[in-house]
């Protein structure tokens, strides 16, 4: 049967599989090799799953991860959950013990279908050889149809080894009604109601989530923003959906959002939310403030509309189709008072000035200055991947995404260890483009064993480790919320990351200035040589601000030093300070 399964994958266009082999999957790996599918030998199955997730996000078709039964399969679980919470298309294929010993606690038996039920869009255990083809085609298609997500197919070893010639034409799919994943056309009445709300809004704001990327709807978002003169704010995954250098894009809002984005969302009277599930990380808290706003919620998944915030108007539709319909309904909007936008740009300017001043006082590198330096060097289409931790939050605030689809992060699950394997998966998906992995020392240590693939498969990625020797986001909470009791968040100076890199035959550097950061990043990207760059960060100073405490509202953000006088609550009576008024209404990007 495995020969047939490998052929089906090949027919589906699968050319690469990421995984770790083992007793219950080796027959399938053998069949993949016979079909010339390239197998990338990850050093841990979690890495293979993250790579498949990232590959899927870049290619916009499922990445495939394969592992053996028992620990091989359970090691995939974190990666599968990560793909689930970030709606990324991936297919996991697991070996399983023979059906004859099911439930007998056989060696390396785990009910992986049961384990992954809550974190897969679909999973299926193949009990007969003739099910393998339909199961694979179904799982592959479901991974990208409608809202993307991970799927899993489990192959018991005895079924794998049964002879199956597939002489008759087999059914293509399992009995799934795929049509329900095609979003309905936007309801014209709902679109009209939404258009009326937007036309009458005093301070409309567009909140963009990751769904805008999947719907390729960023041109419509920007046209609508320009028509309405509405600021655009994003979620963390929504950074991937709109170019940060558009003058109306304020950046990400939320717990570690940018001040001008938090201010925009907090002071909106009408929020047009597109392709987002209204995470608590984005809005701080749902009530009372969020529920007092008029919310138009567009999502292709009907179970998301009204899940966290009851919308005034809910539109279940493809984001692109819904926005096009809205644009048709909004032929002419009276030009609004630009005061609100001017105020947001004032907030931005104060914020940037405060960060510059803060950077001058830092004993070691200011993380955001490193990011801005890297951004100057990296070409616009560089794929940027992050780990999870303070470096990720700094990147959320200060890394500008110029090309939609070039920002990969673990947003929903918040998986430390995502960066290195996801960067490898992204590089496999786009070998012609630079891939930059912005990681933290804690996150890096969770999956650094996968560095072995860099030389094994010639995957020259640029890794920048923000090395504060701490689990800094937790330490941050300990400082603010636990009376500075620092428990289990500070590391020693071991291991030496330069030696780790050297062990994998990768150049490592410890820059001492931003000029050196620029020089080495440029060298790595230009020459396509892998690099590990270790950035020394002080773990007493590395507090990611602004920060909205859990349960607080966006205007209550703890601001960076020097902004104590800056209110995030908009007043219609606000007057621009004199020097700014003289510059008219400049809307230049950051």
């Amino acid at each position, binding site marked *: 049967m495995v020969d047939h399964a490998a052929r089906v994958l090949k027919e589906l266009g699968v050319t690469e599989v990421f995984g770790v082999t083992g007793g219950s999957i080796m027959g399938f790996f053998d069949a993949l090799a016979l079909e010339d599918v390239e197998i990338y030998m990850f050093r841990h199955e979690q890495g293979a799953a993250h790579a498949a997730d990232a590959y899927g996000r870049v290619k916009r078709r499922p990445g495939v991860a394969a592992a053996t039964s028992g620990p091989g399969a359970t090691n995939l679980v974190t990666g599968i959950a990560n793909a689930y919470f970030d709606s990324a298309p991936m297919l996991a294929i697991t070996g399983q013990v023979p059906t004859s010993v099911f439930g007998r606690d056989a060696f390396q038996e785990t009910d992986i*279908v*049961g384990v992954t*039920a*809550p974190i897969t*869009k*679909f*999973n*299926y*255990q193949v009990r007969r050889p003739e099910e393998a083809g339909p199961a694979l085609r*179904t799982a592959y298609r*479901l991974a990208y149809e409608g809202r993307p997500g991970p799927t899993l197919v489990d192959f018991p070893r005895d079924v794998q080894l049964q002879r199956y010639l597939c002489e008759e034409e087999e059914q293509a799919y*399992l*009995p*799934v*009604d795929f049509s*329900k994943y095609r979003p309905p056309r936007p309801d014209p009445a709902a679109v009209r109601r939404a258009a009326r709300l937007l036309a009458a809004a005093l301070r409309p704001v567009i909140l963009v989530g990751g769904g805008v990327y999947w719907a390729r709807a960023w041109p419509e978002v920007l046209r609508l923003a320009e028509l309405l003169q509405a600021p655009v704010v994003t979620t963390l995954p929504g950074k991937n959906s709109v170019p940060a250098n558009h003058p109306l894009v304020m950046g990400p809002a939320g717990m570690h959002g940018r001040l001008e984005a938090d201010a925009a969302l907090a002071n909106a009277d009408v929020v047009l939310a597109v392709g987002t599930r209204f995470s608590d990380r984005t809005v701080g808290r749902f009530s009372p403030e969020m529920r007092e706003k008029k919310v138009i919620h567009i999502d292709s*998944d*009907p*179970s998301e509309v*009204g*899940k966290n915030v009851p919308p005034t108007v809910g539109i279940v539709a493809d984001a692109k189709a819904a926005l096009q319909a809205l644009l048709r309904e909004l032929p002419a909007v009276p030009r609004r008072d630009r005061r609100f936008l001017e105020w947001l740009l004032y907030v931005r300017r104060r914020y940037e000035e405060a960060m510059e001043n803060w950077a001058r006082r830092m004993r070691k590198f200011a993380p955001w200055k490193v990011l801005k330096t890297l951004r100057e060097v990296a070409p616009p289409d560089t794929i940027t991947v992050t780990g999870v931790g303070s470096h990720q939050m700094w990147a959320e605030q200060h890394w500008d995404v110029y090309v939609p689809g070039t920002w990969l992060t673990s947003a929903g699950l918040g998986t430390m260890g995502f960066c290195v394997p996801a960067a490898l998966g992204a590089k496999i998906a786009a070998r012609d483009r630079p891939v930059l992995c912005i990681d933290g020392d804690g996150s890096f240590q969770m999956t650094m064993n996968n560095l072995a693939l860099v030389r094994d498969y010639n995957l020259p990625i640029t890794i920048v480790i923000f090395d504060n020797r701490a689990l800094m986001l937790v330490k941050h909470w300990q400082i603010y919320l636990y009376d500075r009791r620092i428990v289990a968040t500070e590391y020693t100076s071991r291991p030496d990351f330069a030696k780790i890199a050297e062990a994998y035959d990768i150049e490592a550097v410890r820059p001492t200035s931003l000029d050196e950061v620029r020089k080495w990043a440029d060298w790595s990207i230009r020459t396509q040589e892998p690099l590990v760059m270790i950035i020394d960060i002080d773990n007493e100073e590395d507090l990611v601000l602004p920060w909205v405490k859990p349960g607080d509202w966006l205007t209550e953000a703890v601001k960076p030093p020097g902004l104590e006088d800056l209110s995030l609550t908009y007043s219609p009576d606000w007057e621009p300070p004199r020097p700014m008024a003289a510059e008219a209404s400049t809307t230049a990007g950051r």
Partner: protein
Amino acid sequence: MEAVEMGVEEMGNARGLYELEVEAWNGMDAVMRIVNIARRAKLRYTEMRTVFEPTGRLRLRLMGWGEGSEARWLAAKLERMPEVYRVEARLLRPDEDAFPA
């Protein structure tokens, strides 16, 4: 029991006893996946019954106390499952004093 028979769209957020009927395929694996989602809804369940038909289809009936928004969330989540052909949710007995899970 006198059923109100209110559809999922009309039931608003009324508190009471809800019934969900699910038609699906894939046997016990589907039941497991349905239950996995149902246990995350804030409903206090009173009954669950499944009939496996010779055609390979199954019919699962769930009853539980709670708010309309929870029943609606659960119905929407179940409807998204590839194994599920049909979901019907209805309010059987409004009861503002009922408490959810």
